[in-house]
């Protein structure tokens, strides 16, 4: 057996207190410069209710799927086996104490804690872990990790506190993405998640009440297997209008999540408010159908990549809160290099030359744009850039629900501007989970070489092999230019200065066990 990761200083599980610090970065109220969250000097105080506002409601019925509204809720009521560290991107144990993989990577064994109880009082065992992982594969649970779990042959409890997974393809490292999202659910009350009538986890907070679309309340779990949380309770208020949500920070709540770049401006210069970036966030890709003429010409697709001024998008649309990027995964991914991350930089002359090479001067570029968040504003710059290099963009803004429907059907036209979450998961997982990259993607990009390189990455064992496979896949994808990542945007939040020790993991899920109020 090859040990992938054992309990030790780096991956220790003795206390969650050490695992997630530095996940968030504070932006000063005036300048969007990131620094680590600094804990207030002195002893954390127990008590108080943290009041949070966000634009999306929680979705208990989709607890096993990635949903923005669940991010501040999921990992506080529930625990996962492991979490992905926000700095290294590597897994760290929570309910899992140890894990190992066979030499061929086809068998994976994980040991879990033996001192954990659900909020109902029932002890958690390996059977609950097996049940949870099996639920990931159920289509109606809508997990983005379903394609990975579908590859597994068996998930078995090989002891009271040991689970063994077997597969025909290597299980690690993608299994940690499954663990990150698949919080352990109580198999006896799983049905209660459908309407939120029974939300039973093992986390530091117990689910108290939920008024759909309005508010959620969680209270401290006094019998938590680790140290109990400092906060007595957490309230999440749902305020759909982003500006109204930002205004709630003026007395109604202590923290707001997912601020728009425009709304965070209202707190500049306010000494009582801190603006912060957290990990996770969104990709803004521009996809191209490689089978639609004249976009079946690679030179034209590459030209579009060079034509777009990503820095201008960040400055003018995101108020500086974004990262110019060419690839679909976080820059801390093993094997990421600056060369790959900035493969396409703004070069209109090169774009014009490539267009000339493709004989595509004056080509009409029909673009379907999702009418969500900042995407329509980004389109304004994209169309201006494309006109500059001699193309004729024709954009159509589609309402989100209609766009998503067409995206799932793989029918978005010759080119399209999407928005994707799941930042922080590994590249090996994203190539199967992101609609822009997976099989049956709307770019209709599915050559055998692409499948071969994806499989090589997913099978790579060890950091060196993984890095080499990632670079080869990334270079191929970037050269084929079927999906241009324009920018990545980290979530922006704002909080009262009295809120201390916020913790986010690599995918932007909020962990509040260590958070306290300095009131």
């Amino acid at each position, binding site marked *: 057996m090859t040990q992938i990761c054992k309990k030790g200083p780096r991956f220790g599980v003795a206390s969650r207190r050490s695992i997630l610090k530095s996940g968030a970065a504070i932006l000063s109220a005036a300048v969007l410069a990131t620094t680590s969250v600094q804990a207030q000097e002195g002893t954390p105080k127990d008590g108080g209710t943290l009041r949070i506002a966000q634009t999306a409601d929680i979705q208990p019925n989709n607890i096993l799927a990635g949903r923005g509204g669940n991010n501040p809720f999921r990992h506080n009521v529930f625990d996962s086996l492991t979490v992905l560290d926000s700095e290294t991107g590597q897994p760290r144990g929570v309910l899992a104490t140890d894990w190992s993989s066979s030499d061929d990577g086809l068998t994976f064994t994980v040991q879990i804690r033996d001192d954990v109880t659900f909020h109902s009082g029932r002890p958690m065992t390996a059977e609950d872990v097996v049940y949870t992982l099996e639920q990931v594969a159920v289509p*109606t649970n809508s997990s983005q990790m379903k394609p990975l779990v579908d590859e597994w042959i068996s998930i078995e409890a090989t002891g009271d506190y040991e689970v063994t997974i077997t597969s025909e393809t290597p299980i690690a490292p993608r299994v940690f993405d499954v663990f990150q999202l698949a919080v352990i659910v109580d198999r006896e009350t799983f049905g209660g998640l459908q309407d939120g009538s029974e939300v039973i986890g093992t986390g530091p907070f117990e689910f108290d009440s939920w008024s759909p679309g309005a508010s959620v309340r969680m209270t401290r779990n006094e019998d938590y297997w680790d140290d109990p949380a400092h906060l007595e309770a957490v309230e999440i208020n749902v305020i759909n209008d982003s500006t109204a949500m930002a205004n709630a920070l003026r007395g*109604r709540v202590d923290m707001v999540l997912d601020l728009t770049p425009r709304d965070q401006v209202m707190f500049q210069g306010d000494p009582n408010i801190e603006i912060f970036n957290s990990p996770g966030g969104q990709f803004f890709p521009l996809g191209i159908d490689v089978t639609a003429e004249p976009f079946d010409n690679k030179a034209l697709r590459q030209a579009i990549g060079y034509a777009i001024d990503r820095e201008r998008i960040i400055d003018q649309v995101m108020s500086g809160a974004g990262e110019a990027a060419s690839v679909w995964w976080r820059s801390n991914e093993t094997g990421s290099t600056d060369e790959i991350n900035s493969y396409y930089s703004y070069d209109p002359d090169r774009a014009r030359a490539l267009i000339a090479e493709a004989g595509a001067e004056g080509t009409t570029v029909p673009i379907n744009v999702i009418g969500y968040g900042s995407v329509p504003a980004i389109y304004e710059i994209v169309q201006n850039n494309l006109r500059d290099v001699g193309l004729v963009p024709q954009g159509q803004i589609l309402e989100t629900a209609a766009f998503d429907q067409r995206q*799932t059907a793989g029918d978005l036209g010759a080119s399209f501007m999407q928005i994707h979450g799941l930042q922080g998961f590994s590249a090996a997982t994203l190539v199967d989970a992101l609609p822009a990259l997976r099989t049956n993607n709307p770019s209709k990009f599915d050559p055998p070489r692409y499948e071969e390189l994806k499989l090589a990455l997913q099978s790579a064992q060890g950091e060196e092999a993984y890095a080499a496979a990632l670079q080869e896949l990334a270079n191929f994808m970037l050269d084929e230019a079927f999906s241009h990542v324009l920018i990545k945007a980290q979530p922006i939040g704002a909080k009262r200065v009295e809120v201390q020790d916020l913790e986010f993991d690599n995918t932007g899920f909020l962990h509040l066990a260590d958070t306290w109020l300095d009131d």
Partner: protein
Amino acid sequence: MLTFLARRLPSVALMLVVTALIAFLLPRLGGGDPAQVVAGPDATLAQVEAVREQLGLDRPVLVQFGDWAGRIVTGDFGTSLISNRPVAQLIASRLSSTMELAIAATLLMIVMGLGLGILAGSVRKGGSRAAIDGTLSVLLATPPHVTGLILILILGISWRLLPISGEVSVFDDPVTGLTYLILPAFALALPQAAMIARLIQARMSQVREEDFVDLAKAKGVPPRRIAISHVLRNSLGTAVIVTGVRVGEILAGAVVIEAIFARQGLGTLAVSAIQSRDYEVVQIIVLFAVVIAVVVHFLSEILLAALDPRIRLDS
């Protein structure tokens, strides 16, 4: 009066049946798919199909309508496709918020509308009249959400006199509840009050030209009594019927005002249900809104009929 009511009831019933049909079909004609919303934007086609089957949306539309209409008749308003909670429970949890706002705004509208209308209809001198006309024009032309944002900026952020986000029920804490109601109710009521004031002003000018007013003057009735007993009394019928219509406008305006002031009322529920294609919730809210509007309109007709015998006789 009974004949009058009996003649109105069939048209009210027909309107409700037609509304039910429209409420059912309209959300389905707007594009999008609740199964897609539940499954999420990253879902595969197979996942979306599985969710659609689970929600019963794979059945023919006629079957779905028959099922829904049958349940409505028995008092079962269905279950939200998104939260899986009973629709009646969702609406009940939001109803008091919207009703508090609507009642406060309606009272303000009536008080301000009558006050401004009588003032505008009584003042006939050049400068004062121009000032009142100008004020009414500005209030009429300013939509509630703009008024709301201005009130937030001045009274909430700059002067910090009143809360700008959230709500406290007036039944739980009357004083605090009122402080949360003042700004949104003002924002909602101002344009409607201006509309009522304009109508009263115009009607008062009309009535002043009537023969019976000249007769009263000739008989030496004091001007104050002419203004109140003759002019005003004969001008209020318009205000009564218009107030009924305006209540509908207030309920419609509450959608935007609730969003701006982050109140968790029916308007906010409606917006999120429409965005997430939660057909079951949208259908009942549309039906509910129409029932409220019809009932208010019906009541105002009864009131008008009571005030004006000609209407009863015409019927």
